């Protein structure tokens, strides 16, 4: 009887590793999605840098660092919003959540795996961007600054995960790509990601300065000395947005779960 009366559970690190690995493998085998997330930010960088660096004249070096920061922000945020948004909507659409719910895998381990996997994926996107910017683009950043720059980009991305969760749990798999683009692309523009905020109309600037993506871009911009608000202020805004967006994501998650599992 002892074998049947002792309760055992699987160790969390083993589940977490297997879950993260499975998500990475699965994503790398969907080339369209991977290429879009990893290569698109670098293509945008190349386009804008190619067009505008000539006009920057003696400021070309500073301009290069500036758009490395904004397109780095774009790259990581893009991975987070799409991975969580479309990823979760797809899992729901394919009813993966039903089977998973019946296994001993705790929900929080699955979510943590999604976070780790997304961070790894974002890092890949950054590495491609850096490779282009530092070789073809000729942007210079010393190694110490590069480490801080990268860490800030990864750590500042939490509000974007919350946004992705909110989209993923509230939209169908069919609608998720459109909804995600509809929210993320205008937000990127208004937040000064594609074109510096100072070049945009003042009405847009006012709105942009409320959005999480604007404050997020301030983190890497601070490393290259081109921030327009202090690191502390940006961090407070991001914490606030993280709370708001995760609360929204959690609310949609509960609404979805109560339909299926109550």
């Amino acid at each position, binding site marked *: *009887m002892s074998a049947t009366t002792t309760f055992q559970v699987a160790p969390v690190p083993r589940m977490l590793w297997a879950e993260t690995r499975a998500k990475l493998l699965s994503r790398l085998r969907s080339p369209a999605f991977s290429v879009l997330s990893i290569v698109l930010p670098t293509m945008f960088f190349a386009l804008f840098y190619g067009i505008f660096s000539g006009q920057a004249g003696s400021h070309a070096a500073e301009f290069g660092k500036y758009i490395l920061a904004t397109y780095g922000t774009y790259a990581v945020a893009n991975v987070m919003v799409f991975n969580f948004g479309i990823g979760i909507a797809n899992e729901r659409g394919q009813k993966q959540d039903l*089977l998973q719910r*019946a296994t001993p895998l705790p929900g929080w381990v699955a979510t943590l795996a999604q976070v780790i996997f997304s961070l790894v994926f974002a890092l890949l996107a950054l590495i491609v961007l850096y490779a282009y910017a530092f070789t073809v683009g000729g942007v210079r950043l010393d190694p110490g600054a590069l480490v801080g720059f990268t860490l800030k980009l990864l750590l500042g991305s939490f509000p974007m995960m919350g946004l992705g969760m909110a989209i993923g749990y509230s939209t169908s798999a069919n609608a998720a790509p459109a909804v995600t683009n509809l929210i993320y692309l205008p937000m990127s523009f208004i937040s000064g990601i594609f074109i510096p905020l100072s070049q945009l109309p003042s009405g847009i600037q006012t709105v942009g300065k409320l959005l999480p993506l604007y404050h997020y871009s301030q983190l890497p911009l601070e490393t290259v000395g081109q921030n327009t608000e202090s690191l502390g202020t940006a961090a407070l805004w991001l914490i606030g947005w993280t709370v708001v967006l995760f609360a929204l994501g959690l609310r949609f998650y509960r609404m979805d779960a109560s339909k299926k599992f109550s």
Partner: protein
Amino acid sequence: MEKVVELIDAHKRYGSVEAVKGVSVAIEHGELVAMLGPNGAGKTTCISLMLGLRKPSSGQAKLFGLAPTDRRARSRCGVMLQESGVPGTLKVKELVDLFRSYYPNPMPAERAIGLAGLEEQAGRQAQKLSGGQLQRLYFALAVCGNPQVIFLDEPTVGLDVEARRAFLESIRSFASEGKTIILTTHYLEEADQLAERVVVIDRGVVVADASPAEIKSRVLGRRVSFTADRSLSDADFQGLPHQNLEVEGNRVRLLSNAPEALLRDLFRRGYDIRDLQVVGADLEEAFLDLTRHAEKETVA
């Protein structure tokens, strides 16, 4: 014996519909149980309650004496649901390894794949499997954690005859290790072939809970079929002991508790018949009879 699963006067209401109306079932270690009933009878809801996928509106559900959502209880269960999905770009072996990681003492991946008969597809992506192979994959995922009990919700739906036979063989092979198996089905021969105990559910209540043989013996009915020398109608059978009458021109099929008396009366009334067959009612007919009795009781 240790109780593996228990529903105690469980009710489940979805809005205004009561899908389960006071079901009490206890399943012990090593039992092979089929939950049998027509579509919409409440079988899947019962399984969902047992697994903690749904909460009972009233009453209780227990898994190994714990709340069904308890991870310690879940770690002893394997599950095959009617509606589920896996990441399509992962390969069979990768998915089995993923699900193995959820359990404390999983079986080797090769064994789970072997039990499901998927050796040749181990390196294939889930999205490229046929319907039958996908069902087998879900079976592999249900057993790979080496659980003490597996829940199979309509496991053979959509399988052809050959695939179903192979699948039942896989389940039997896993059961032979002293595992508890709980499956739902509306394929009655499946319950008969596989289970030692059949719980018949209809309209949210248990209408019978016995061995397949007992259920058969409870129904006295015999299946009678013959071809008459002329066209018949329902009226021709008035006053004769029969149920479930089907008349199609000259061809007649019915159930009767007294086939001898019925045939004697037919001959006496001057009908001539040929191609006569009288056989014992199978489980399907037993089941029809049981649910009809339950219906009468609720009406009364």
